[in-house]
């Protein structure tokens, strides 16, 4: 007889999740950060070519069937709230991404996302570290902060801003990875980061990697200087990426340009276009307060706290049993 009706996570994992949610809500309540909810279904999608949204077609407004996107992140509606209210907010929600399934990936996962008007990126990293320490009571962890440039220079001997494609391929080949892969510059950098660097990051400490190449800015502000950097960070713990933080882009015109570039990127790699979020652009036109924001994967944080290996260990019902 099939046992697939049973939960996959054990009781300890379910309890750890409940403790985590309680702990983070207390943390944000103490700090005056408002909990909010925004829609899971949106008329607009995230055009990021590296993220594939799920969607459904339905008539939800009585004005005919149309496409609704399941959120890949609550970022756009949360920014609309920020533009309207200007106060610090956080949200715990489910987000959805097609084509992501593995030991650390599940197509539906729990995200904690929060925004801090007036915070610089460093202050937000401080707060992320504080929260993680608070939630991992038994396990106070040390911390390092390392610039993306230094990470690649120190550990791979290559400058990610100036290295040529053959040089990047050679670094990968020297580690037995390159094969017959054909990648763009950022593809090679992603390969090196995910295959050669990430497994060693955050072993026994919280590793913040910050200041990314401008080509990987996503929705972060770009700091113009001799060597321009995208003002964002990623947090790694136990060889796993946990969080992604940004000095948030507030310039509506720049946002439009990045949306268009993303759409072009989607069409290049044969992905369907998505409807752009005009409401977000409207909010940016109105004015987004200078702020920093971060998204943290709660399932992965639970993996770290429980010293577990597979995301299914912290999910009541993984998608194969959903």
């Amino acid at each position, binding site marked *: 007889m099939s046992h697939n009706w049973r939960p996959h996570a054990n009781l300890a994992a379910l309890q750890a999740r409940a403790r985590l949610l309680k702990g983070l809500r207390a943390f944000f309540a103490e700090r005056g950060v408002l909990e909010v909810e925004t829609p899971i279904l949106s008329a607009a999608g995230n055009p990021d070519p590296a993220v594939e949204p799920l969607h459904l077609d339905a008539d939800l407004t009585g004005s005919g069937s149309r496409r609704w996107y399941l959120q890949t992140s609550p970022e756009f509606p949360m920014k609309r709230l920020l533009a309207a209210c200007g106060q610090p907010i956080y949200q715990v929600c489910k987000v959805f991404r097609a*084509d*992501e399934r*593995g030991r650390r990936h599940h197509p539906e996962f729990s995200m904690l996302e929060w925004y801090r008007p007036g915070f610089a990126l460093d202050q937000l990293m401080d707060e992320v570290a504080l929260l993680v320490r608070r939630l991992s009571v038994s396990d106070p962890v040390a911390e390092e902060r390392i610039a993306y440039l230094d990470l690649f220079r120190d550990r791979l001997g290559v400058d990610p801003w100036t290295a040529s494609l053959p040089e990047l391929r050679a670094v990968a080949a020297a580690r037995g*990875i390159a094969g017959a892969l054909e990648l763009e510059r950022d593809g090679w*950098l*992603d390969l090196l980061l995910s295959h050669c660097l990430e497994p060693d990051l955050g072993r026994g400490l919280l590793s913040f990697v910050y200041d990314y190449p401008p080509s*990987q800015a996503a929705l972060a502000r770009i700091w113009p200087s001799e060597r321009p950097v995208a003002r964002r960070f990623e947090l790694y713990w136990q060889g796993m990426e946990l969080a992604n933080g940004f000095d948030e882009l507030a310039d509506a015109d720049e946002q439009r340009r990045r949306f268009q570039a993303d759409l072009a990127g989607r069409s290049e790699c044969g992905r369907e276009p998505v409807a752009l979020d005009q409401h977000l652009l409207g909010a940016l036109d109105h004015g987004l307060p200078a702020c920093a924001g971060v998204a943290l994967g709660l399932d992965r944080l639970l993996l770290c706290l429980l010293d577990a290996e597979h995301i299914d260990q912290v999910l009541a019902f993984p998608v194969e049993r959903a």
Partner: protein
Amino acid sequence: MASYKTNEFKSGLKIILDGDPYTIVENEFVKPGKGQAFNRVKVRNLKTGRVVEKTYKSGDSVEAADVHETDLQYLYKDGELWHFMDTESYEQLGADANAVGDAAKWLKEQDMCKVTLWNGAPLSVEPPNFVVLTITETDPGLRGDTATGGTKPALLQTGAVVNVPLFLEQGEAIRVDTRSGQYLSRAKEE
């Protein structure tokens, strides 16, 4: 030509890589926070048995290998080939030494074997787990010595050498586990 997308990857899937058939041993989906996703796989070459690591861009397609297992009856060996037959269609197939490999020393006429075919041609041969074979050469038996637990080498009709208890004689049939190469028991002559 049939192909698989990376999201279909799982262990046991048969793919073509650099012209050779491989089976996926392990598949890991890897993705940085923002950016390109990859499938990092360990694959075993079905011809050589070698395991190598390989990384694909997620979303890429890989040629499928037409590899499947079938039960065939071993018939006989001629100069270079071991001949097998599908007992339903009576179709015969010849397997060379590369495909037969270590299985050769266990192959007895009429036995059913698991043969892995690639594009219809034998790629590897697995003998039955248990075979009954006749001892063609061994030291004379020590009658009555069933207690000491001593063993001696015995050459079997197919060319395999296994350790057998001291009391066994030339001409006797025995049961052998081909996976471990261990003697199991005496057997009735077939």
